[in-house]
């Protein structure tokens, strides 16, 4: 009786055991691997960076920045030279110097 059951079940299940076609399944798995995703993200980053760099150079980005900074500096230096407080400047310089020395001394060699 038990052998009959075994034979019946084995025959039924084995007759329904079929190979499954790949149908792009493996391609889907490879596409979704974490490193592959990382690679795609790196490529996209590089492409975006290249486009930005190209547009920056094409529209004279350096000249625009240089002009803007020089205008800003000229305007501010004119204002600064009029009412500069040398005492405050001296104290600020002294504090920064102390902090710098302390940081250098705290480094482990």
């Amino acid at each position, binding site marked *: 009786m038990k052998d009959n059951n075994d034979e019946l079940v084995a025959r039924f299940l084995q007759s*329904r055991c079929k190979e499954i076609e790949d149908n792009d399944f493996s391609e889907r798995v490879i596409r979704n*691997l974490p490193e592959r995703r990382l690679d795609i993200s790196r490529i996209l980053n590089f492409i975006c960076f290249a486009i930005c760099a190209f547009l920056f150079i094409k529209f004279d980005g350096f000249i625009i920045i240089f002009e803007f900074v020089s205008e800003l500096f000229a305007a501010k230096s004119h204002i600064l030279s009029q009412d500069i407080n040398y005492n405050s400047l001296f104290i600020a310089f002294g504090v920064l110097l102390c902090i710098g020395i302390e940081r250098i001394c705290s480094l482990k060699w």
Partner: protein
Amino acid sequence: MGQINDIALVAQVVVFKNIKAFDTLVKKYQSPIRRFFLHQTLGDSELSDDLAQETFIKAYTSLSSFKNLSSFSTWLYRIAYNVFYDYIRSRKEECGLDTYEVDAQYHTEQKAVGEHMDLYLGLSQLKEVERSCITLFYMEDLALDRISDIMGIPTGTIKSHLSRGKEKLANFLKNNGYER
């Protein structure tokens, strides 16, 4: 020979991050792993493909932990088995169902049409653990000790599940005129 090939491919993936070698492994094992899920989910092909994909991705990310104590296919089946039981656990938490059987029956009525309907109806008579044992033993032709490795339970318990599952399935088949 196949086992040596598998180890060579695994080594290429781990050492050189060779995606082509992993692709070869996926192509080799996609059919048994997808078939395993198809039987566990009672014919839900979309779900079984998603779970199979998760299995291969998990295998890829933890390939360096493959110690060659068992064959690569046993190791892969163990991941697949864990992925399936994690899925069941998450479903139970989400839906608040006590058993997966209710869901399984629903799937059978909804989707298992066509040539394999009788197979999925038969498998739906079994508990999940019995279904895993029966399909691994009869359809994937795995030995008891390998099934024990995959499911992480003793061989004696596997034999009990197989015996109970076989009896239930045999009764279903007899009641549906498959005995000749």
